């Protein structure tokens, strides 16, 4: 199996939520530029997939979609980054302390046999990590967001003088992939779970049918999440689902043997049966 194609879908979430449309607020980039993809960095990406080697080397091409919100925490940061301070301490601690008073000794052993002092666990952070108020992207815990910027005037309904507009937009999630490319049986997408600690561990991947050539369109439906304050001042989460079209182009070339003196019938993979 050759190179897997990764398609990064970048979205300006505040602008998309405000205009209720992805037009002008979405860009796609893939890593197939060397193989002929066009429209890199624009909304109109055509992924080029050359399936010549599907005849030589069994294994389908694989596409992966990665949705990214511009302004969200970088995806390489693990999800433990978002914990409240006391959750972080709890993770750092070993087993739960016994609830019974006086019946169990203060020093107990955990599952692997290490002694744990419940009253003074040795694994607590010595001092709480301080959140830098300037550095809003380094939210320690869920920083209470200000109002989502719905007005182009830039005025916030809830603003403290001297505050920055702390609005939190989680990474968008792809809900569904559908369209012509699926109906024609060209790509077979599915949502997979991954141990990667971003996008809540879910991502979309598709295998490509190398037998159908041509240009096919597909539609991605993306959920954009945002937080805002309602009239009572409570923070609520909301979302909007928008869709966008992109294309894949499947082409094949003329397979040849790299050694010029050898002619090889490449329909069959059994080289031993052929002659020079």
């Amino acid at each position, binding site marked *: 199996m050759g190179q897997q194609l990764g398609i990064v879908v970048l979205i300006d979430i505040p602008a998309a939520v405000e205009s209720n449309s992805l037009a002008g607020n979405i860009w796609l980039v893939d890593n197939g530029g060397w193989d002929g993809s066009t429209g890199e960095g624009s909304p109109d990406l055509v992924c080029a997939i050359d399936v010549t080697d599907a005849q030589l080397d069994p294994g389908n091409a694989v596409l992966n979609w990665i949705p990214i919100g511009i302004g969200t925490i970088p995806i390489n940061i693990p999800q433990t980054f978002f914990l409240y301070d006391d959750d972080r301490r709890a993770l750092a601690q070993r087993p739960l302390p016994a609830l019974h008073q006086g019946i169990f000794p203060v020093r107990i052993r955990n599952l692997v046999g290490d002694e744990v002092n419940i009253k003074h666990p040795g694994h607590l952070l010595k001092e709480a990590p301080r959140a830098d108020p300037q550095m809003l992207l380094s939210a320690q815990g869920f920083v209470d967001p200000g109002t989502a910027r719905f007005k182009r005037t830039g005025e916030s309904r809830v603003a403290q003088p001297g505050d920055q507009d702390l609005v939190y937009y989680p990474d968008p999630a792809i809900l569904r992939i559908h369209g012509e490319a699926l109906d024609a049986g060209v790509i077979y997408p599915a949502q997979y779970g991954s141990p990667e600690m971003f996008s809540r561990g879910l991502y979309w991947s598709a295998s490509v049918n190398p037998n159908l050539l041509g240009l096919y369109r597909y539609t991605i439906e993306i959920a954009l999440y945002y937080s805002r304050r309602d009239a009572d001042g409570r923070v609520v989460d909301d979302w909007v689902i928008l869709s966008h079209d992109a294309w894949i182009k499947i082409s094949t070339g003329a397979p040849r*043997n*790299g050694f010029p003196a050898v002619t090889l019938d490449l329909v069959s993979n059994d080289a*031993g049966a052929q002659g020079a």
Partner: protein
Amino acid sequence: MQPINIVVLVDSIAALSKGTLSDNVHLTDDHSLSQGKGTAMLRTVCCPGQWLRWKVLAVDVQSPAVIAGIDFLPWDDVPEASGVDPDIDRYVMPRWRAWTGLVPCDTPPGRYRYRLALQMGSGGQSVIFINSPSIDVLG
């Protein structure tokens, strides 16, 4: 005779970063007597009349790697080297090539080195060669 499969495993990003395949490529094959498996100095044991099949795999799933060329060196005292291939225009659509070759039946026994060129991506520095792997033809 069974065909011999030779697998080239390459760390594309390290190879492109350093401009060399030394330490970034590992070859192995499925013949029990071959020497140097897992290194760039693979010596594939084979017989005249046997098929050899090369295949490349990139360590990173989203990095490209394609065999651009396999050329047997005309003589043995070429110094072992690896670097960016200066003349990449002679490789025509390596994407479309299969690398299955036949050791000619009249080949004298001995060691024959070959120059393996890999293309990783596109651009002037994307084709890198190494000339230390070889085949060992038995009598």
